[in-house]
């Protein structure tokens, strides 16, 4: 058990750190540049150089900030994201805690994660940070609603909130096929949840300096940074688990399949960042409430109706 926990922790943190390098290289690839390629082989040691830099920077708390909350905020994001990894099934048996409410656990922790941003924006006592925090609160509220709803189709099909059950239920067919609208809805909600481009209005540097982390520096900023990349890994892992059959796949070992699929989605998030501009805030909120929420409800309704109407009673998932 301990070995699994430590292994997952080490692997996930390493992945998040390498993701800094990967994102810069991938962005560069799609923008016809090279990105960091001088430090070490392929620039891999750039991460180390950045770490040294960020660790040796002055750990500055502004005198006007609410000190306790200011220090607490960056810890929350790391904590919630790392806790969420406890329920992610990397391979058969390779899961820290296979909760029977794994999916709800993940959704709950991702909702808690927003407190990090809101509190950081509030505690910084800076108008730009506060605006970033407020936007984060509104954005999370709007997108969390249909994020959960978009996953209910998967739960109906699998008949379980346990993530290993959901993966096992995808043996005949990946849920991305019957739940394609749900997949798209979750993907969009996930980008908003991660506060990444094109939905990074909480830190929109063109308007809000750096949004909620404008006052942060040194290792506290580093924690927000790593927290964001951990979030990318987590969401990609969740998309893999929920819609793309998790570890299922021929020939290759299950863990490798899982990592490969996760990698594809991580790259996709970077591609979105490279390609899309940021919408206006009212467009973002309007899009969430007026388009995505009705679509998520319709998807849930249709999925439920199909499962109730087409599949015979005793063959329904979770009933047998």
């Amino acid at each position, binding site marked *: 058990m301990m070995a699994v926990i430590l292994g997952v922790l080490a692997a996930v943190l390493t992945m998040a750190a390498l993701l800094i390098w990967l994102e810069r290289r991938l962005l*560069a*690839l*799609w*923008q*016809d*540049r*090279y990105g960091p390629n001088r430090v070490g082989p392929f620039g891999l040691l750039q991460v180390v150089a950045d770490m040294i830099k960020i660790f040796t920077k002055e750990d500055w708390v502004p005198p006007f900030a609410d000190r306790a909350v200011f220090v607490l905020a960056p810890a929350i994001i790391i904590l919630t994201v790392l806790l969420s990894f406890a329920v992610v099934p990397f391979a058969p048996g390779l899961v820290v805690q296979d909760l029977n409410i794994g999916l709800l656990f993940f959704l709950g922790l991702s909702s808690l994660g927003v407190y990090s941003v809101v509190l950081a924006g509030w505690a910084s006592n800076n108008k730009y940070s506060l605006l970033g925090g407020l936007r984060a609160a509104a954005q999370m509220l709007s997108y969390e609603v249909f994020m959960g709803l978009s996953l209910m189709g998967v739960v109906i099909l699998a008949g379980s909130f346990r993530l290993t059950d959901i993966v096992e239920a995808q043996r005949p067919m990946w849920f991305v096929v019957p739940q394609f609208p749900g997949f798209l809805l979750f993907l969009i909600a996930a980008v908003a949840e991660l506060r990444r481009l094109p939905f990074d209005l909480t830190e929109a540097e063109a308007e809000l300096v750096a949004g909620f982390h404008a006052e942060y520096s040194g290792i506290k900023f580093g924690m927000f940074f790593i927290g964001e990349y951990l979030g990318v890994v987590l969401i990609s892992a969740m998309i893999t688990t929920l819609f793309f059959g998790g570890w299922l796949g021929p020939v290759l070992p299950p863990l490798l399949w899982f990592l490969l699929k996760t990698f594809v989605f991580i790259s996709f998030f970077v*591609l*979105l960042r*490279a*390609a*899309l501009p940021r919408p206006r805030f009212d467009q973002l909120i309007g899009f969430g409430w007026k388009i995505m929420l009705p679509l998520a409800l319709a998807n849930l309704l249709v999925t439920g109706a199909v499962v109730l109407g087409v599949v015979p009673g005793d063959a329904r998932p979770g009933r047998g």
Partner: protein
Amino acid sequence: MLSILRTVWEVFLHAFRPRVTVQYPDEKIPLPPRYRGRIVLTRDPDGGERCVACYLCAVACPVDCIALQATEDETGRRYPAFFRINFSRCIFCGYCEEACPTYAIQLTPDMEMSEYKRENLVYEKEDLQIDGPGKYPGYNFWRVSGVGIGGKDKGEAERESPPVDVHGLLP
């Protein structure tokens, strides 16, 4: 919505395009011959100094980075006693080259002159002087000018007729 997908796809296709970055220290682009880089002082084809210390370059210099002192050798040939260019001031505008009547001062395509100490950017005459004639291989100022110097009197220059004797009565 469709345009967003198209954008994402187009950006993805950029993965297969050549990168525009030039990996500078490893890979250098050829600079054109007229590139305005490090300033040099050139020599005549016969090896003599071209600079006649006329101060025109120092006058033309908009940032006053050129300092020199004229002097003469025993044959009456002018040359700079010292010639100093402060490259930490130089803006590489090329006005000195334009002003130079003897093609002595020239700008070259070399621009890798970084130094760790600022004082090292002050180039003295021995740092500036090169052995060749630079961009004008055949040109020899003292051989075409009408000024008499040691070994070449007035009227003996190339394509020059002897001076008219203003005191003579012949046409």
